């Protein structure tokens, strides 16, 4: 939509549409500026195959004035592109292509610079270094809003060893602007927290206005593979769009049109579509009228067509999702699910869901839903987002989580929903909520059900674990007393008795640790979660219980045939701590 407004004066456009772009109030403006700069930095690093290392600094100039500085270790920007990238609105190639990327419209960072200029009169400062042997260039840019381009205020070369870019290349952008820094929900902190979850391959260093340094370390050293650009998929394309494409195509025959302008249409598929539509692949495109187009449209719906290629979508992946959650959420149970790709309106997309449970998460609150689109956290308009609806519509009670009708479930849970797509259908330009398409919501629900089921298994087992833990602690509590009294009666060393009884206690509770199925019968092959790569359990974070329950659990059927393997995966060894906060 914004693409069609090219002829309108940019300043006018921007002044009118500030709110659409996420600059409605000072607090949100600060967040949006950071977000746009970080998104750009991540995209730049990934496209160049560099593991991102991004430093964000908020410098408070006065109560309402901040200097936002974001520095990356990306490839740097060649001198002549600097004005275009940072000085022009709607500059970029991301809008027309079908490729998965963080930015879509090419508004972001230039809008932030423009906002800064409008609120403080200060130009944007860009320092870029493209090679370690080349000096960094420092450019001070001032937007000329009437012409939609930037004027260079000053330009200097940095000495080679300025130490700004440790890797020898990168970009730093500083914007001075009106803003408000406040921690909590919808803050810069939350944005970085969530970005770190969805981008475990990136390292972030955040210097807060109070000069605290928060580090978000990497959970993995693997870069996500680069996304490929694709053609639209025929399934789900609307009739109007199809007609438009037919009108615009340079192909002469229908067969060629179908095969060349859509993905997954082979000669045989195109033949089948044409046959169903009552035409042939050799039919001239110019002879295709409204009736024929409708025939083709109907035929597409009936013919079996391969799902779109998934290499155009780069999922975060179950493993990386888990490592992201693991390093940022202090929970005890983690699981994730990546759905196969599906299509809405001809656009391939895929849904990923991660779930963290227990540990230090608050128990008596509604669960927290964190939403992502192409790895970018969505912090606003939660209830308008289809992911939120999908969470509501999932029957959490089935997994042992309480949920009142029409509201989020309650419990120590963080659910993250990620949609990766070549085109994410946002409800507005500020990219805050995903539009409610049936196909998308359905996929989200399926993914939520998958992690829910695993959580359910864990919940039941945790209950058993807890019972076992209680049993063990009951025994351990009493054997000290028993050993001493027995020594007093018999003269046998209390320590010897204690040590022996402790061994028995460990053995007895281990026996009952053996995996049982829901009916309490022993499962032959071990733990269903134990072998599952999509699950991580950190037993150390299971909160300890208070008073034990006095359950007279059937002592008679205790199994005597030895322990049956460990309950837990040891895979969580790399579990790292929360980002370290240190006073700078």
């Amino acid at each position, binding site marked *: 939509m914004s693409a069609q407004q090219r002829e309108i004066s940019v300043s006018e456009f921007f002044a009118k549409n500030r709110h659409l772009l996420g600059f409605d109030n000072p607090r949100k403006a600060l967040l949006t500026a950071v977000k746009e700069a970080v998104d750009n930095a991540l995209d730049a690093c990934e496209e160049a195959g560099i593991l991102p290392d991004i430093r964000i600094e908020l410098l408070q100039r006065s109560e309402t004035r901040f200097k936002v500085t974001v520095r990356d270790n990306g490839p740097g920007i060649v001198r002549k592109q600097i004005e275009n990238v940072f000085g022009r609105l709607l500059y970029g190639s991301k809008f027309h292509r079908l490729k998965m990327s963080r930015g879509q419209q090419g508004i972001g960072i230039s809008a932030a610079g423009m906002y800064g200029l409008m609120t403080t009169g200060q130009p944007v400062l860009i320092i870029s270094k493209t090679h370690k042997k080349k000096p960094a260039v420092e450019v001070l840019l001032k937007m000329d809003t009437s012409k939609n381009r930037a004027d260079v205020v000053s330009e200097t070369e940095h000495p080679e060893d300025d130490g700004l870019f440790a890797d020898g290349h990168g970009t730093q952008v500083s914007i001075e602007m009106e803003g408000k820094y406040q921690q909590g929900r919808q803050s810069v902190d939350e944005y970085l927290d969530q970005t770190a979850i969805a981008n475990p391959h990136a390292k972030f260093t955040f210097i807060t206005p109070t000069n605290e340094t928060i580090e978000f370390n990497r959970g993995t050293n693997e870069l996500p593979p680069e996304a490929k650009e694709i053609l639209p998929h025929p399934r789900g394309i609307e009739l109007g769009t199809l007609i438009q494409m037919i009108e615009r195509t340079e192909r002469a025959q229908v067969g060629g049109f179908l095969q060349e302008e859509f993905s997954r249409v082979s000669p045989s598929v195109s033949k089948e579509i044409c046959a169903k539509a009552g035409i042939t692949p050799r039919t001239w495109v110019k002879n295709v009228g409204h009736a024929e187009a409708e025939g083709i449209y109907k035929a597409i719906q009936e013919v079996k067509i391969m799902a779109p290629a998934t290499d155009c979508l780069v999922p975060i992946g179950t493993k990386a999702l888990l490592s992201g959650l693991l390093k940022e959420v202090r929970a005890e149970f983690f699981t994730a699910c990546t759905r196969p790709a599906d299509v809405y309106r001809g656009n391939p997309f895929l849904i990923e869901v991660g779930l963290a449970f227990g540990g230090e998460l608050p128990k008596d609150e509604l669960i927290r839903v964190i939403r992502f689109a192409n790895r970018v956290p969505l912090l606003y308009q939660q209830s308008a987002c289809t992911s939120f609806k999908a969470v509501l519509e999932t029957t959490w009670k089935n997994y042992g989580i309480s949920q009142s009708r029409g509201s989020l479930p309650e419990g120590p849970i963080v659910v993250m929903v990620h949609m990766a797509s070549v085109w994410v259908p946002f409800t507005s330009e500020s990219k805050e909520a995903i539009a409610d398409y049936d196909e998308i919501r359905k996929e989200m629900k399926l993914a939520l059900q998958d992690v829910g089921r695993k959580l359910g298994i864990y919940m039941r087992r945790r209950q058993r674990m807890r019972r076992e833990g209680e049993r063990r602690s009951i*025994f351990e509590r*009493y054997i000290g007393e*028993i050993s001493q009294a027995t020594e007093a009666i018999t003269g046998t060393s209390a320590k010897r008795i204690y040590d022996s*009884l402790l061994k028995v*206690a460990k053995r007895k509770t281990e026996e009952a640790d053996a995996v049982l199925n829901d009916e309490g019968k022993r499962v032959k092959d071990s733990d269903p979660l134990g072998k599952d790569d999509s699950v991580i359990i950190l037993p150390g974070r299971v909160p300890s219980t208070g008073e034990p329950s006095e359950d007279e659990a059937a002592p008679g059927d205790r199994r005597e045939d030895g322990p049956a393997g460990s309950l837990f995966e040891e895979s969580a060894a790399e579990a790292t701590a929360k980002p370290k906060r240190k006073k700078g």
Partner: protein
Amino acid sequence: MTNMSKKSPDAVRTETLGKIGDLGKAVAKSALAEHDPFVDVPTRTISNTTYNEARRLLQMGDATLRRNLFNTGQARKFMQMVLLSKGCKDLLEARKTLSLRGMYYKSLHTIVGTNEKTFDDQEESDGILEDIEVALATLRENLHLFAKKRGTMVGNITVIDKGDSIDCRRMGTGGYAIPSICEPSVVQFGKCEAKFVLHVEKDTVWSRFNEDRFWETHNCILTEGSGQPPRGVRRLLYRLHKELGLPVYCLLDCDPWGHYIYSVIKQGSINLAFESERMAIPDARYLGIRSGDFVRCGLSDDVKISLNDRDTERAKQIAEYPWFAKKKHWQKEIQQMLRNGFKMEVESLITKDISYVTEVYVPERLKAKDWLD
């Protein structure tokens, strides 16, 4: 059950110490072998109680409950058992006695590293001590434990209590407090003119009889047991009956609880069935109150206390006890009470006249030999 009274106190003490030692050794041995230590405790429930028809008393069966350490429901009790056994051993070695409450305090402390106490209350400790008694096949007295004194006696008898001669004819209004341990080693009988024992349910009725000097006019011994009589009272009644040949008559409330008190005195209790042989008095008789007394004595409606559901249920249970089941007069009595739909306390007779119970009711019954057996 061995009759401990025949052995010298020292021999009993040694034997009891040996039994506690055995329990400790069993625990130590099974611990060192890395097994689950246990103690077998004879079950004190109705299902493990049999009525010996020939001897007309309740006996404990052979059923035992194994109390394991490594069972969540039993661990704490197991710990308490070992702890109290150790407490009793200390007591025996020191040649001292303690009340049940004293023993509870002796063994009460906070378990190291927790904020849990070894016992929540005395009741918990008392129950475990009974378990130890049956598990070691010994008696509370032999563990040097006694209960709080309960029950009073007055009458034409002299008793020697730990060497002190006590004339029960000169006890004023208070009476002789029956000690918890009434073993021959503690209490001996002196001169006795009394011809029978009248046992009443509670203190208020007993005071009425004492004030009216009933024991003097009828030449008897008057006892009360504050409701369900404690072991001391039962042991004393037994010895008065057995050693002095005195018949025992009971004056209790007309309700299931009164009936069960009579049952305990006569056949022994389910909980302490192992002590029946030294406490039960199969020849004890039930004078009243009886369900027909409302009409017979012409009592006013005011004395009726409606039977509640629990009373009705309990009455039916009692009627089914084997030692009641075959007694037609008892079946009739209980059926009539259920038909009446109300119970009556002994005090209800006071509505007739302050001393009706002592001057009319009991003398009439005794004279007419009108009692239930």
